[in-house]
């Protein structure tokens, strides 16, 4: 068995004065797609921010590729090959599409070239001079994902990429994630859309009140449906 690419142990996190993560423990193995499921406010987004080092304060252990990152600056974590696609996509209004795309610096070889990205998302090519936030929600999401693919990072943290998007776009994102998985990317996904999560992920961690309370492999999902509904309060 290979070592996990991302290994989180006893992760505590604070957002300002409020303590939001209370000892998260989980691992993500190379090439896996793993989701964090949970109710609103359970600490899923905070977990991603804590992994990137941009939550207010964090303690515990976050090992990436075997390296302890808990004391590292966010920019060094990013340089190590972790990339975040933030909640609400984080497209910059004062930058046009291409500038948004080119913003994150390359951190490793093997990122997608800009030509390849425009091949994949022809809409972006068409609108490359428009302000980033003038795109539709779906296009913005594509842009947000494309932007981190350029950097060469192989481990992606995606925060609710399907939020507020039309079903056909959601499907497209699902296909994109599958394609990335096939290319060997490791993805940690935060999702509210449980059906979407089920369609792309290998395993699911259930998060509640800032800690992981269960892990359900995707293959056992059907058997655990009731339990999961109870967790999520659906």
């Amino acid at each position: 068995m290979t070592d996990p690419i991302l290994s989180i142990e006893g992760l505590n996190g604070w957002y300002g004065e409020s303590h939001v993560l209370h000892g998260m423990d989980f691992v993500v193995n190379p090439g896996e797609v793993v989701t964090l499921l949970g109710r609103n406010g359970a600490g899923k987004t905070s977990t991603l921010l804590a992994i990137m080092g941009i939550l207010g304060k964090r303690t515990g252990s976050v090992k990436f590729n075997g390296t302890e990152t808990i004391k590292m600056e966010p920019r060094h974590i990013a340089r190590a090959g972790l990339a975040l696609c933030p909640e609400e996509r984080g497209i910059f209004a004062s930058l046009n599409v291409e500038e948004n795309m080119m913003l994150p610096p390359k951190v490793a070889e093997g990122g997608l070239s800009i030509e390849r990205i425009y091949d994949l998302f022809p809409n972006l090519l068409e609108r490359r001079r428009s302000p980033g936030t003038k795109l539709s929600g779906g296009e913005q999401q594509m842009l947000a994902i494309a932007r981190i693919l350029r950097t060469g990072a192989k481990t992606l943290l995606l925060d609710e990429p399907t939020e507020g998007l039309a079903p056909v776009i959601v499907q497209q994102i699902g296909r994109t994630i599958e394609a990335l998985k096939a290319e060997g990317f490791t993805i940690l996904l935060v999702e509210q859309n449980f059906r979407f999560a089920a369609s792309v992920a290998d395993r699911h961690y259930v998060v509640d009140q800032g800690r992981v309370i269960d892990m359900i492999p995707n293959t056992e999902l059907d058997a655990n449906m009731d339990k999961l509904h109870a967790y999520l309060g659906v």
Partner: protein
Amino acid sequence: MFELLNISPQVLMGQLLLGLINGSFYAVLSLGLAVIFGLLNIINFSHGAQYMMGAFVAWMLLTYVGIGYWPSLILAPLIVGAVGIVLERLALSRLYHLDHLYGLLLTFGVALIMQGLFRNYYGISGQPYNIPDALSGGQNLGFMFLPNYRAWVVVASIVVCFGTWFMIERTRLGAYLRAATENPVLVGAFGINVPRMIMLTYGFGVALAGFAGVLAAPIYSVNPNMGADLIIVVFAVVVIGGMGSILGAIVTGYGLGLIEGLTRVFYPEASSVVIFVIMAIVLMIKPEGLFGRTS
């Protein structure tokens, strides 16, 4: 209509041109202030003192080292910018998580210290600094005598303003800056060294003030108080243009120079207050400023 007011069109032309020259200083200074505010969210109250420092450094380079105007035009802003960077590292960087108010108060204090120190060492009556030989004399434009140096001031300020605008709006570095202005945390999470960018931006904004100071040295008196009252005016320019808006700062800088110039003809006593009247009106009607983004 102008004849009615006893002002000939020629005189008016001259006054407008002079307004533009004054506007050049406002534009360069408010540009620096806007750049700093955009990224640091700090109102740099020491901007006037740093402008004064630019003029003084040019004078010191000439007096103690024998370095003339042209090298000073590059060197003095670099020196002033470097001092700014030290200030940013030692003090300002500790305030970014706090209210705007603290940055304003700190830089206000720094301005007092700088002005006080220069006053102690160089007195108040000012130091002479001559117009470089290459730019002495002037052109007779028919409606007025335009000193070459003033023409140069306009050209230099337009070049610097356009260059800065281009750098911020059209280059990759500028894209980093704009992105960091919007969401520094995310930009940091992409692997960009935001603190260093902030430091350099402050240095750059301050260097712009220093540059304006060198430009001013040959025509205004080089004295420790030269920036003390100017800061309030430049401040108003930035607010009218829209806090943090680069284009707003530049356009408003020139525009208010022109308006002030007109006021000097029709109601000279009010020329120092007209900017505040405009600021009050603008803030009442369009609080985000003429070029500001609504947020």
